[in-house]
């Protein structure tokens, strides 16, 4: 009845992924079915020993959908994420959600392009599957330090997205190289109907500039430290450009985390 639920769920999978990430899958069928790509949950971070910080932590939905386990992919950064990564199968986790405004896929789009780096791929992963389900082709640029960090499978799942990988280790992730790649796409026959990004300030600025130049609509998922996660405390604001050009503080948890690509400001 209420769209946002405070619940506890059983951990059914908890395992490291690659060199830096950790996967958590939960048995929460109703929440999973109600979740949309781009939304997030606010997780209470207590490890099996009950230790963890006082506040919840926001985490993008990485896997969701009717009949699917609810999944998160996290980078261990501090106390909260460390407690989450220490959860074992069978332990319970308190979660609040689904929260926030997800990505919008417009009817009639035939092709989208996604540019991600780092844990931003968790946020955009479910969009690849949602697009595939609507018959929208997905092309993605995955940027990573080195091939070992790529996690293409974690990103694309069964969506059949066409992935181009770029790396710091061989220079292919440098802005000019990515710019050349994107221009070729935007000018070619496979010009996307919309672009999406998350996770890198540098790539965001590049995509914002090129999308404006080519007149392609875009969306970005932003992060900000959160208190309530529900829109009540105003600690998670970011400056967002209004249509009239003025800049206003919007709440990442309520008006976001997904914003118009051109409205977002660099951070």
């Amino acid at each position, binding site marked *: 009845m*209420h769209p946002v639920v*405070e619940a506890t769920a059983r951990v059914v999978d908890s395992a490291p992924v690659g060199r830096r990430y950790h996967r958590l899958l939960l048995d929460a069928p109703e929440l999973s079915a109600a979740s949309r790509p781009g939304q997030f949950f606010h997780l209470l971070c207590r490890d099996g020993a009950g230790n963890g910080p006082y506040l919840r932590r926001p985490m993008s939905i990485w896997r969701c959908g009717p009949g699917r386990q609810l999944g998160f992919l996290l980078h261990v950064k501090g106390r909260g994420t460390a407690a989450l990564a220490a959860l074992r199968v069978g332990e319970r986790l308190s979660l609040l959600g689904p929260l926030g405004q997800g990505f919008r896929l417009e009817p009639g789009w035939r092709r989208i392009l996604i540019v991600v780096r780092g844990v931003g791929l968790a946020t955009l992963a479910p969009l690849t599957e949602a697009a595939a389900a609507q018959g929208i082709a997905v092309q993605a640029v995955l940027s990573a330090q080195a091939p070992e960090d790529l996690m293409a499978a974690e990103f694309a799942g069964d969506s059949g997205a066409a992935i181009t990988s770029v790396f710091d280790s061989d220079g292919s992730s440098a802005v000019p190289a990515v710019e050349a790649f994107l221009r070729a796409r935007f000018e070619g026959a496979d010009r996307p109907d919309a672009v999406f990004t998350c996770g890198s300030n540098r790539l965001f600025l590049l995509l914002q500039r090129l999308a404006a130049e080519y007149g392609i609509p875009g969306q970005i998922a932003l992060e*900000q430290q959160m*208190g309530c996660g*529900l829109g009540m*405390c105003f600690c998670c604001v970011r400056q967002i450009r209004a249509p009239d050009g003025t800049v206003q503080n919007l709440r990442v948890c309520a008006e976001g985390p997904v914003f118009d690509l051109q409205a977002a400001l660099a951070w």
Partner: protein
Amino acid sequence: MVNMAVQIGGLPLANPVMPASGTFGPELAQVFDLNRLGALVTKSVTPQYREGNPLPRLCETEAGVLNSIGIPGKGLDHFCVHAMAEWRRFAPPLVVSLSADSVAAFAEAAARLAGTPGVAAIEANISCPNLEEDGRAFAMHPHSAAAAIAAMRAACTLPLWAKLSPNTADIAAVARAVEEAGADAVVVANTILGLAIDIERMAPKLGAGMGGFSGPAFKPIALRLVWQCAQAVRIPVIGVGGIASAEDAVEFLMAGASAVQVGTASFVSPNAMLNVLDGLQAFCARRGFARVSDLTGLALPGRMRPAAE
């Protein structure tokens, strides 16, 4: 059946559980039915638009948080027109928290709220800086607190609650001063000033430096402030500070509060207020109290405080 109704300075509430200002919004209706609450309390409204403070605006501590949000908002005009339209969808009495930086501004805003349909009471957040006294909070001293309340009292007939600050040497004196100035209730207490330092960045964790400390860690202090105020005044005391469970709420009622507000706990558990409400009722039933208002003041020296009105 336990009678959960309470009276706060003439304002009847269906039950004594309500949110604390600044930690609540209509957004919580996404989680539960807000009509179950005894009252609704808005985040503080200021006469003019305010940008708010630099980020980070919140950081966590051992069993609590520090905040320095800076009361961002679109100002009173916008509130009375747009926000009120949304608040009127809910049944419980609406308490509008009001903040201003001069006595005159408090009075003018109170008059405006009194003319706005749907406002059941004003909670005067006098813990904010007073520009006429060098930025010291109104609630720091009895005379400035009383001046703000007296001016609002003269400007409107709405029930008027004064929200007091822990950052004072003698909160009982402040409570007595606002009672004399015409307050119908005291809300005890706002956050206490605190600090946290990021030792890697070697700077305060909050963008603004110091912040207001709240949450379970703050509870013993807030409870003491309620206990002191309940012995100092005859108007009802509304207890707030660190309440996260029904047991916490019972402590506040027994210390002399007639109602309670839940703030920070809602960030960790958005259902906290419902749990407090259900647990209060269960406590009364188990211990044989017919009315929740019978708990008020039970632990005061000589049980001096009668049940609220």
